[in-house]
């Protein structure tokens, strides 16, 4: 049994996926994750299930509280470009080989902590992905003053490109504490679970909390994978009509279209996630003479205290929830005009894509998508469980890990950091050839995935994303070899769900 949970903008969707059945449930977010998990626990034994959670907490925090959470950005850039606009530049440097060639000054760190007012700390050292020692030493000093859950280190981001790593670490620091809190809540019910990433793969919680920006945009990713799983359509445009937004995600060859280096609040980051187009209107959008791009309450027909798009559908003739309440509040003419405007908006957005087929998801899809498709001149499918396709997507996904391997046979080290929870350093033999480096990294990626409970059938497909190697010569003598290997266990549908 797999339990998939998607905490969206307004509702939390849950899917139970077992060998031959799918069950879905919807809860209002106001209930809180603990209460929802309590209810789920009554229906099934979560301790025996695989639990996967997708959360829009990062997006919510980023869109509403980003500037309120003050981040102290501490940098160890050493020589090179000027990074003073990215944070406080302190002494200390790791070079491209991973050697510490300039030591940190501990008193400098103490001073910057004492002098500033902040909620979170982002620590970014140049080439920390080659040697995280300086970031670790800074962490030891900072944690005496700040809660560990509010300190983020850049080497956990994993990828080369310092300015992007700084930005990603700053984003991480703003959402870190909330992700930790959520994690603690969930762990009351299940010690080991997975988070769903914005690229449609899942990762063990322990890895996610160190680089939480990877969870960015996970809801559209979940919807896309769910829509694919429920319809089998490899090429289509998914139109997800949610509570506060309507999101469009394109499927190509069975995979959602991705964006590399997502820009978050104007900052280019290392985040790779599903490319989605969001229209700020959904079932809970307020109607006050016209539709507004925000939510005030639930629809009247579901006990809310202001009319919304859902109520307009009732006034126009549908029967969703307590439809009488909607009809008493909004007249048919107003309702039809505003529904028409909404449909135009979404049809226009859908026309921007070449896909011929629309897949409708979300609770209101069956009421709105037929007309949207007609106006956009597209065919459409509304699959069973469309109202919780997001949770289905969460449940069916498999583990996805990127492992950044760095081998330096002169120093006798292999470093696997990237998304790992510890920095592995181990001796390797002096004259490894290129294939050995690659297979060692793949092996390590599989080991980690299995350690966290991935099914061995889900980790067969490991792609080599990057490889480079060359000899190291000192004093005119070949002393060893350096190799960089990046491998990825690709996201996709888990064997349990096939």
């Amino acid at each position, binding site marked *: 049994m797999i339990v998939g949970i998607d905490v969206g903008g307004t509702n939390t969707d849950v899917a139970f996926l077992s060998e031959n059945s799918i069950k879905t449930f919807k809860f209002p977010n106001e209930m809180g994750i603990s209460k929802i998990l309590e209810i789920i626990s009554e229906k099934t034994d979560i301790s025996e299930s695989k639990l996967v959670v997708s959360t829009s907490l990062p997006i919510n925090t980023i869109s509403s509280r980003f500037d309120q959470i003050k981040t102290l950005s501490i940098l160890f*850039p*050493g*020589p*090179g*470009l*000027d*990074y003073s606009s990215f944070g406080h530049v302190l*002494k200390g*440097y790791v*070079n*491209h*080989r991973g050697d510490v*060639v*300039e*030591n940190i000054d501990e008193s400098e760190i103490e001073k910057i902590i004492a002098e500033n007012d902040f909620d979170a700390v982002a620590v970014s050292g*140049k*080439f920390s992905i080659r040697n995280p020692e300086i970031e670790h030493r800074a962490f030891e000093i900072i944690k005496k003053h700040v809660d560990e859950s509010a300190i983020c280190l850049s080497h956990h981001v994993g990828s*080369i*490109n*310092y*300015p*992007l790593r700084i930005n990603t670490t700053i984003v991480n620091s703003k959402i870190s504490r909330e992700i930790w809190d959520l994690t603690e809540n969930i762990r009351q019910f299940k010690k080991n679970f997975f988070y769903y990433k914005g690229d449609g793969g899942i990762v063990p919680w322990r890895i996610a909390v160190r680089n939480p920006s990877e969870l960015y945009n996970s809801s559209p990713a979940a919807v896309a994978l769910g829509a694919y799983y429920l319809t089998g359509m490899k090429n289509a445009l998914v139109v997800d009509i949610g509570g506060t937004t309507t999101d469009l995600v394109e499927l190509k060859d069975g995979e959602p279209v991705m964006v590399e280096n997502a820009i978050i609040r104007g900052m*280019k980051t290392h985040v790779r996630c599903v490319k989605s187009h969001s229209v700020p209107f959904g079932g809970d959008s307020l109607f006050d003479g016209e539709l507004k791009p925000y939510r005030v309450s639930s629809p009247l027909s579901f006990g809310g205290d202001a009319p919304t798009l859902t109520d307009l559908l009732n006034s126009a003739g549908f029967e969703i929830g307590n439809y009488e309440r909607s009809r008493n509040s909004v007249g048919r003419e107003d309702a039809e005009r505003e529904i028409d405007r909404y449909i135009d908006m979404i049809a226009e957005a859908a026309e921007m894509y070449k896909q011929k087929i629309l897949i409708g998801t979300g609770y209101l899809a069956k009421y709105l998508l037929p007309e949207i498709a007609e106006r956009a001149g597209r065919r459409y499918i509304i699959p069973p469980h469309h109202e919780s396709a997001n949770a289905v997507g969460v449940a069916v996904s498999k583990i996805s890990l990127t492992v950044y391997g760095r081998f330096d046979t002169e120093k006798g080290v292999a470093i696997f950091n990237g998304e790992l929870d510890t920095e592995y350093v181990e001796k390797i033999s002096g004259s490894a050839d290129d294939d050995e480096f690659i297979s060692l990294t793949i092996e390590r990626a599989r080991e980690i995935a299995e350690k966290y409970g991935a099914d061995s059938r889900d980790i067969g497909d490991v792609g080599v994303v990057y490889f*480079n190697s*060359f*000899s*190291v*010569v000192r004093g*005119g*003598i*070949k002393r060893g070899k*350096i190799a960089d290997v990046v491998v990825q266990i690709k996201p996709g549908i888990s064997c349990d769900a096939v």
Partner: protein
Amino acid sequence: MRTGIIYHPKYLEHEQSPSHPERRERLAYTMDQLMEEGIFDLENILLIEPEMADIDDILSVHEESYVRFLERESRTGGIIDFDTSIPVGVFELALLAAGGAIRAGKEVAEGQVDNAFAMVRPPGHHAKPHTGAGFCYFNNIAIMVRHLQKMGIERVAILDWDAHHGDGTQEIFYEDDSVLFISTHQIPLYPGTGYPDEIGKGRGEGYTVNIPVPPGTSDEEYLYIFDSVIEPVLREFQPEFIAVSAGQDNHFTDPITGLALTARGYGMLMQKARVLAEELCGGRIVAVLEGGYSVEQALPYTNLAIICGLAGLDLSNIREPENYIGELRWRKRSYAMQKVRDNVMDVKKIHSKYWDCFKDL
């Protein structure tokens, strides 16, 4: 302003032997540094992948018999001199390096970018019309200059600041008054040429300017040479294009030379050259990578410094890490400035016959 960086992943493939000073690490570490600095995300930097040079371009500089010899030997492996072997496949890689220089020149001449750095391997400035030498197979910068001249750019100035004298380039343009060749380099050092009395011949007399420097020469001396010789001669020559043979082996950590330039010094030299190009020839300047063998300690930073100097990026944080400074103290020589002043005086005297800027000595 936009700066092109010409680079091809195949530049990492050339290798005479894994322990040869001119080896893959040189650019592998540089690319590490540039990727980590996020250089390729900057709006004013354009990464350009070149193609192989046409044989016609090679033949504008090299003798056909040598080109055929290299092509033939490159199939099975061979040897040119004691430190320049012919590894299998080097012919195509050397064509790609020359192609990189040509592409840099073309992009700048045609205005797609304002200036460019051809980050190529193998290097070129020791290669002569009839032979390769000193790690070099084809003279990349000379091939670029001839290509530019075919495009209609007549007067080109070559500034060669590699620690070794650019004897190949000098030989190619020795009797040519359309190309000014100014070289500053360490003496004594390979190849043993480049004395101030080598001034060019025939129509080219006075268009070769050599300024030797002693071991231990550092930033101040190089900047002094730029201000007192390079800049006035370039102003008087009025080039339409400036080409820099950018050797990064003057750095104080270089294992096969004895100079004491720093990464910041490189950045400042390049910045001065770029500003001068803006004044004299619409900013048209290309740097072509030559030597530089401090693969771990210097090359990543010095190449970054060159790019910063070209792209107008802030140089204030181009500096040496603390742990390297001790080496600089060992390398720098207090007497270098006096020797450089003497050399500059000799150069001015010799060239006062050809250049008005040195007339009033």
